[in-house]
């Protein structure tokens, strides 16, 4: 088990919270809550050790296109592939922006 923290620039706080994914091997659980304006804080608890660089690259690629909303994100990872992580994060971001 390893806990990783990341911070990225962000826009205005998201309007609502969201929870997607589930606890189980090959998947992850993602909790999103509106955070302080301008900041996206991500905490990852993962069962895979030594994966900090992989997570950083994945987040950088995801947030490269458009500025994400300000959020506190909690991720519990159970060995999900990068493809699954991306799907779940996109699903979660969609949910916080749907009002």
């Amino acid at each position, binding site marked *: 088990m390893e806990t990783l923290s990341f911070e990225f620039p962000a826009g205005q706080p998201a309007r609502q919270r969201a929870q997607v994914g589930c606890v*189980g091997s090959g*998947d992850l659980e993602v909790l999103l809550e509106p955070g302080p304006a301008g900041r996206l804080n991500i905490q990852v608890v993962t069962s*895979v050790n030594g994966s900090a660089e992989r997570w950083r690259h994945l987040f950088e690629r995801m947030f490269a296109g458009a500025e994400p909303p300000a959020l506190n994100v909690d991720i519990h990872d159970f060995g999900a592939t990068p493809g*699954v992580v991306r799907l779940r994060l996109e*699903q979660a971001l969609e949910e916080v922006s749907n009002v």
Partner: protein
Amino acid sequence: MHETRLLPQPHDLLWGMSTDRLDAAAPTWAAEVLAAGRPVVVRRAPARDGWIAVGVRGHGREQRHAAWMPRAAIRRRVQPEQLTGGGEREGVCAPLRALALLQPQLDALCRQRGLAWGVTGGAGYQLATGVTVLGEHSDLDLLLRVPRPLERRQALALLERLEQLPCRVDLQLETPAGAVALRDWASPAARVLLKAGSGARLVGDPWREVAA
């Protein structure tokens, strides 16, 4: 008709893979596992004709290695359905105690609805090989083969039963298009994660998806 039942399915355990089928970058523990005569686990991934995507399992979560095995090399195959009787009511290991408690319930459910269930993951591997990989805090991984739609409220009722057991149970619903976690399908989420041979995707209803 193609005999799909004879084709190895994800989670099947296969014996007969030789160490020379490992790629040059394979870790030494993977070669040791094969040399000891242990099986590989069929993965859900594309493979060329005549080949099967498999995984070699070592100690702990970090020791997993992806490989491909020629179908012709299969000497023995054990399916998750063959391992359901391996529970230990008085066992020291929580996943095997949970299995003993669940077996009559899942057998009854499967008889009523014409389904099949099986044991996968560490518990399946341990029951099939005798190699101890489970600990007191391990999960119990199961699959339920569900060719026809399972209503979400029925999924929730089943999940609630699983949550009363001595360890965490991770049950995958095997649909014709791929696998979905029971926990996901039992949730109110509009879309769920379908793990298919061609990769994972989010879908509204796994039973309306076409197998890829």
